């Protein structure tokens, strides 16, 4: 009885030693990065780095598994950087780099692990094997870790190619697809733990696998993995904020769509006994749409501010902007129907699925079929 009566301890007291250790490590990495690479950053980028430190710390406190992820990714990335010895050619010579943790190797491993994770989740769900699904989670975690290592190392490699070429790897379709896989997987892992159910993984991993398929095709058919210098319009610190925010949105909307599929199947009795209850699917679906909508709102605003800096107007009705607005209006309508009209069920699930079609068009279709100011990352 004492226990329930107690006020919850204030946030700071609830933190464990591990939390503080994590905070110290994040702060140390921030300082290390600043001292080591500060000369390549402008004042805004330094500010972003400094703001990232507390944000990551708080994020790690909020979502505990992020702490080991951060440390593992950081350690492997540093190891990879040390293996380079400042020489790009070591990519083909050093064993670890060549087969494991050069950016391209790590990303290919990420692809493979996501593929395996998809199989594990499906196998586990169909066979009702909790263990197999746990394997799926573990594989997903490993894929996320390697994917982030890949991006971090790619960031470093781009500077090795030329200090004027170096840039954060979120600048073209190839890089953002990797980012998409990682963000989508992380968000899913968060909800998996939160709702204590792994069955939805089978569906979410499908959309990640599709992205992986695209990455592979894009790499092998188009050589898109080559690091290209930035076009002048992209040389801005805004990119570091705008692109990741956008992909939280895209990732969330994709998860919502896959849950929509799961919902529709379960509502027809297909796999119903193997999937979580409809209310749970519905609830997660709402949660991810809400996260996605919030971040998409921020991303669009950041994009408008960037456009004001680069093109001279915060809104130019360029196709990419317009489609971002369409996506945004679509989910605004979705949220209203659900929250204000109180509608639930198949109709919203269908809408979430169609929402992904709209989102995909905004993300890919615009680059493929329409031309405009956002004329990079063509297919």
């Amino acid at each position, binding site marked *: 009885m004492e226990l329930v009566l107690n006020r919850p301890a204030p946030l700071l007291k609830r933190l464990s030693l591990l939390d503080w250790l994590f905070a110290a490590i994040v702060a140390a990495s921030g300082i290390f990065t600043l001292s080591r690479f500060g000369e390549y950053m402008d004042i805004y980028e330094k500010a972003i780095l400094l703001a990232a430190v507390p944000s990551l710390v708080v994020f790690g406190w909020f979502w505990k598994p992020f702490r080991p992820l951060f440390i593992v990714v950081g350690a492997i990335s540093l190891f990879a950087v040390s293996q380079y010895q400042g020489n790009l050619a070591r990519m083909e010579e050093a064993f670890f780099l060549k087969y494991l943790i050069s950016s391209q190797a790590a990303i290919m491993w990420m692809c493979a692990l996501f593929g395996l994770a998809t199989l594990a989740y499906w196998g586990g769900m169909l066979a009702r094997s909790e263990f197999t699904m746990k394997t799926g989670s573990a594989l997903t975690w490993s894929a996320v870790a390697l994917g982030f290592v890949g991006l971090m190392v790619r960031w470093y490699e781009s500077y090795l190619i030329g200090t004027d070429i170096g840039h954060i790897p979120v600048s073209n379709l190839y890089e953002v697809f990797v980012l998409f896989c990682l963000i989508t997987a992380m968000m899913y892992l968060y909800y998996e733990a939160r709702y204590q159910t792994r069955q939805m993984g089978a569906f979410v991993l499908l959309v990640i696998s599709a992205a992986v398929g695209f990455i592979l095709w894009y790499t092998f058919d188009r*050589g898109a993995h*080559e690091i*290209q210098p930035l076009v002048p319009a992209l040389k801005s610190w805004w990119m570091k904020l705008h692109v990741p925010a956008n992909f939280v949105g895209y990732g969330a909307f994709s998860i919502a769509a896959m849950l929509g599929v799961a919902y529709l199947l379960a509502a027809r009795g297909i796999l119903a006994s193997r999937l979580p209850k409809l209310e749970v699917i519905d609830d997660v679906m709402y949660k991810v749409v809400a996260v996605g909508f919030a971040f998409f709102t921020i991303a669009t605003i950041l994009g408008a501010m960037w456009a004001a800096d680069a093109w001279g107007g*915060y809104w130019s*009705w360029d196709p990419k902007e317009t489609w971002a607005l369409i996506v945004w209006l679509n989910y605004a309508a979705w949220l209203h129907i659900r929250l204000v009209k109180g509608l639930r069920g198949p109709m919203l699930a269908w809408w979430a699925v169609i929402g992904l079609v709209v989102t995909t068009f905004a993300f890919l279709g615009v680059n493929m079929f329409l031309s*405009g100011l956002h004329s990079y990352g063509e297919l």
Partner: protein
Amino acid sequence: MKPAPHSFGKSVFELLSSMRFAISLLSILAVASIIGTVLKQAEPYSNYIIQFGPFWFQVFEKLGLYDVYHAGWFLLILSFLVISTSVCIWRNAPNFTREMKSFREHVSDQSLNAFRHKHEVATTLAPEALAANAKQYLEGKGYKVRSLPRDGGVLLAAKAGSWNRLGYFLAHSAIVMICIGGLMDGNLVFKAQQLLGYKKIEKRDIPQSQVPAISRLSPSNPSFRGSVQIPEGSSADVVFLNVADGYLVQDLPFSVALKDFRIEHYSSGQPKNFESDVELFDRSGKKIREATIAVNHPLIQDGIAIYQASFADGGTRLTLRGWNLFTPTAVSFPIDGTVYQKTTLASAASTYTLEFVDFRPFNIENMGDEAEASRDTMSVLGGSPVSDKKHLRNVGPSFQYKLRDARGQAREFSNYMLPLELDGRWYMMSGVRDAPNEPLQYLRMPLDADGKIDTFMRLRGALLNAELRPEIAARFARQALPKENWGTEIEERLKFSATQVLALFAKGGFQSLGQFIEGGVPEAEREKAAATYLRILELTAFEALQVANRQAGLPPPTSDDATGWLVRDTLSSVSDLFVYNSPVYLQLMQYDEVKASGLQLTRSPGKNVVYFGSLLLTLGVFFMFYVRERRVWLRIKPGHVLLAMSSAKHTIDFENEFTQHAQALDALAK
């Protein structure tokens, strides 16, 4: 029954603030926006006419489809969204504010009993004691609690997450604010002036100083977005606003002088940065400041933001050598040109206008298939991300011009200054096309041992010159026949064939030869005949070169592989000249580059309104999503407690929290 007098107004109000209307608006706006992304906006009207034909062009124009986002109907939908959102706020405001403040302590026992989320416990504790504990518990969970004595017991009314409602106000007023900010930056003022006849779009292509006042906007115009191209060494005190199929001139409160424009390149040749060094002067000519503008680094002056938007040629001066392609001789003449200017080319037959269109100091071309090859050897892991850019090459300067004949028909040309290596040999390249949307077709002219096209031109002259034909044919026949056949019938036949082949070729290149063979030779023998004619042509061409060199006072050509290729390439190039179909080839000898910087100047008073609205929107959205509004009541009577809970949103979190409270109450009530 009489309808109430205010019923129409009221039902409009109902409609505007209804959810169904709001959702319909959101959907309609989304669909309407698509149109403008599918149909390219603000193109020159002539493009639309070509694309849709005159009838649909007019229909689409009436619908405003060439500038959808400024079309009346689009603005109307937007204003409906603004009205609907405002009315919605207006309608919800009283309720929501009351709700935010209220603890709903007047709720009756009866209605508490009817709650879906309720939990009853028997207790032995005194109501006041339990109430104190429960209040402490709820406050610990972040609730604001009000404790009221009621009928011998206590009512605890608690609420948490009132900011959710605040979020609603923030987010929805933000929508209104953003739309208003957008309208402030839109062209509504101009549209009104245009409707009333105060302003008119200028459609003529005239110098800016001659644009009449009716098409000019004053420097005090609160909002505009226009662009201007300034050549190096020049200045501008106006910008141009593209409107429909014309433009407006916006006078600026200052003038911008461009000192220098630079393009920096990466080592691979892709552009890395565009920068303009500018000086600003006020209207009296006093210097205000000096600055460098780059992409992503605008300059702000008098509330006007100046951006690096584009670049272009600023009137480069070109020194050219014109090769006359009318005469069957190698004649060239000097000619000068300036980009964006015109000159006339007169010949005996006709007059042409030569319009210089553009000059490009760099041309990065994709040279071949090395990229493909490197991809095949990629390792299993996907290979190195280090780009192997060997296939990209800067092939040097080029210039573009149009040649307009007396009937006004123009063809476009693009000539490179430097030779290009193709298949191991060097050529001068000149591209040509009939219409802007066609791909360029290239004429390649072979270089001689000195790296010039003079030999090609000389040989061209000799090949086309009918007067030289007898001599060339004679030389050819003598060369081809052993001495004992000289002066015989065979020699005459050979001479005849050679003359015929030359004449045919001079009439229309390989095409004429081909037609001749098709017309006169049975199908089975055509291939053989073609090979023979080709052989004759090549040999006569070699003789033609001998003659041409002699006439020009040059030593005879060496008979080696290089000359062989030169002759063969010349033949195909001369044949292509019939398709090239130009009276002249313009060779770029020298240039004096002048660059121009394209600047965009914007004054947008609505920007800060939009940004502030965006901030509110972000805050509002977070409050709405992440502050969960919920209420708890505890009706404590001697011996009995009722827990009731409600929320606007029934999520699983809510269910969990209810369970938690119920358990806590069980513990507390013991």
